[in-house]
């Protein structure tokens, strides 16, 4: 009974997104559509990063590297799979759907593996040192892509067609994946494992004393977080003409951090808000041209001084609606 309800629920959500897609594609112009898609990709990035930075308290500032791995991985696999899949399934939407999702999963896999590779040695470090090491890895990944000739080096990877990668990304796929990932992370965070992650954030030594396998959990969370960044990367790649190392500089990692801080480090609903906020505000400020980034940086500083816990702190949106006695506020910040 439960299972049938769950399946019906999933089908219902997917149908709703599909219906919304028609409205969006016909009602809004390309420019606004692009912002909506970017907001969705941001949500995936934010919610994924929040798992490791917010919930587990391990500060990574090089996540753009994993997004890059996912982007390149998905682009490459997508291009290579296109031939065989189209041969067996024909040129229609079904074939495209299969190629796209397989490509995204491949990108996520590559990103997750790189998350493991980076996480295993790094997560032995604490605080500032961990942050700087992740920054270093992020840059190394970018430099590697910058020099990978089979992936186009600095120019970027555009697939085999001179007009670029196939534009698989659309509203339906982005938001279907948004829902999937938000549900996944939500279930993880509010499970026993999630509680252990929060324990690691609050006091790692105490958690270890309580027999929590801290290293294993930290690395797993890191890898999952990297994999979600990979999905976001794959979605991003297929809405551009191609993938370039320049898109994944340190500034991108900072963007991701701003998203989760604005919403509240440790809060999933906060991350969702932060993702949307960033996409929208950057576009609104675009007219300010060269003043845009100056204001953006100022915003970051002001937030950290005035309200470092962001909008929701570590609480969730649904906590605000609880009628019962307020839960004791957990320690703010990491």
């Amino acid at each position, binding site marked *: 009974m439960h299972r049938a309800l769950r399946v019906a629920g999933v089908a219902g959500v997917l149908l709703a997104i599909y219906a919304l897609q028609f409205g969006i594609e016909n009602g809004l112009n390309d420019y606004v559509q692009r912002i909506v898609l970017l907001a969705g990709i941001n949500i995936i990035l934010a919610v994924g990063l929040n798992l490791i930075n917010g919930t587990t308290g391990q500060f990574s500032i090089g996540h753009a590297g994993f997004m890059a791995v996912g982007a390149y991985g998905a682009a490459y696999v997508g291009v290579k799979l296109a031939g065989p899949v189209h041969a067996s399934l024909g040129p229609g939407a079904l074939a495209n759907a299969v190629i796209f999702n397989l490509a995204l999963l491949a990108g996520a896999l590559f990103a997750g593996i790189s998350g493991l590779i980076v996480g295993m*040695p790094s997560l032995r470090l604490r605080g500032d040192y961990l942050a700087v090491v992740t920054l*270093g890895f992020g840059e190394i990944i970018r430099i590697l892509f910058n020099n990978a000739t089979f992936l186009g080096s600095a120019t970027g990877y555009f697939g085999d067609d001179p007009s670029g990668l196939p534009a698989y990304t659309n509203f339906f796929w982005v938001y279907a994946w948004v829902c999937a990932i938000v549900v996944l992370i939500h279930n993880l965070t509010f499970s026993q494992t999630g509680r252990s992650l929060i324990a690691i954030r609050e006091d790692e030594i105490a958690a270890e004393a309580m027999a929590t396998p801290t290293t294993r959990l930290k690395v797993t969370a890191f890898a999952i977080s990297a994999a979600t960044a990979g999905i976001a990367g794959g979605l991003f790649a297929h809405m551009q003409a191609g993938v370039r190392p320049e898109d994944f500089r340190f500034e991108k990692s*900072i963007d991701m951090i701003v998203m989760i801080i604005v919403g509240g480090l440790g809060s999933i609903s906060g991350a969702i808000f932060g993702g949307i906020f960033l996409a929208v505000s950057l576009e609104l400020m675009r007219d300010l041209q060269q003043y845009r980034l100056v204001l953006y940086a100022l915003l970051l500083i002001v937030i950290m001084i005035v309200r470092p816990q962001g909008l929701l702190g570590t609480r969730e949106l649904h906590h605000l609606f609880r009628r019962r006695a307020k839960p004791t506020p957990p320690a703010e910040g990491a």
Partner: protein
Amino acid sequence: MTQFLQQIINGLSLGSIYALIALGYTMVYGILKLINFAHGEVFMVGAYTGLHAASALGIDAYEASGRSFPLYLALLVLVVAMAAAATLGMLIEFLAYRPVRTAPRLTPLITAIGVSLFLQNAGMLVFSPNPQRYPAILREVRFELFGVIVTNIKLTIFGVALALMLSLHLLVQKTWTGRAMRALSFNIDAAKLMGIDTNRVIRSTFAIGSALAAAGGILFGLDQITITPLMGVLTGLKAFVAAVLGGIGSIPGAVVGGLLIGLAEQLTAGYLSPAYRDAITFVILIGILLLKPEGLLGVVRVEKV
């Protein structure tokens, strides 16, 4: 062989500049346990201040007529730039870092990143994003030794860096301020209890570090010919890695780290590929943090529960 020696000379001069910047990072981290991401931008501002000070003192006229810029004016430019950077450093400390000094470690880290981004972009607005040619505050004279080209600028870099580092060493070891700085780096609360005005010492630390970075900036401009508002980003990061390599909190460590990073970078660019010159710094960072996180000359700190 001459190519190797040439790369070594280039590496050491680059490394001296990194060392000057790394000193600022290491001193601030030693006391506040804060990675001052904005330090690279202070370096940049120092370079640009030098450029504009030189212009204001009429360097264009000297260059056009082929005369060299007088030494006393060059020193004036240096002093002005160092003073400007020191002021900027103290301002950043007061406005951005002091309010979050007691917050959990993450908050100041992100604030520092914010200040860094702000200064980069403000720099592009104020100083124009195009690369600008650095004025010949010191006229370049080349000489050849065993097939290796050395310029007076490289020698000046070594000289100035050495002089400043020695002065810093004397300051830290022999003066009251220096002793106070060392006390704060051991235990900031105990120092406060001992009656030391921690705010003043912290301000001085920022001022000194920033002044050194400005000197590095002018030397960088003279050596690299062009400067841009984003020059501090990568250079600052590499200097930070140098500080970590040498042992963060250790002044001799910053010097050793700077020289090593400079050499590693130049040798990688020359013998492996210029594309990897930046990557090698990060590889070294990861290596040292995994193998010997306290750095080459650092001291292991035990975390008490």
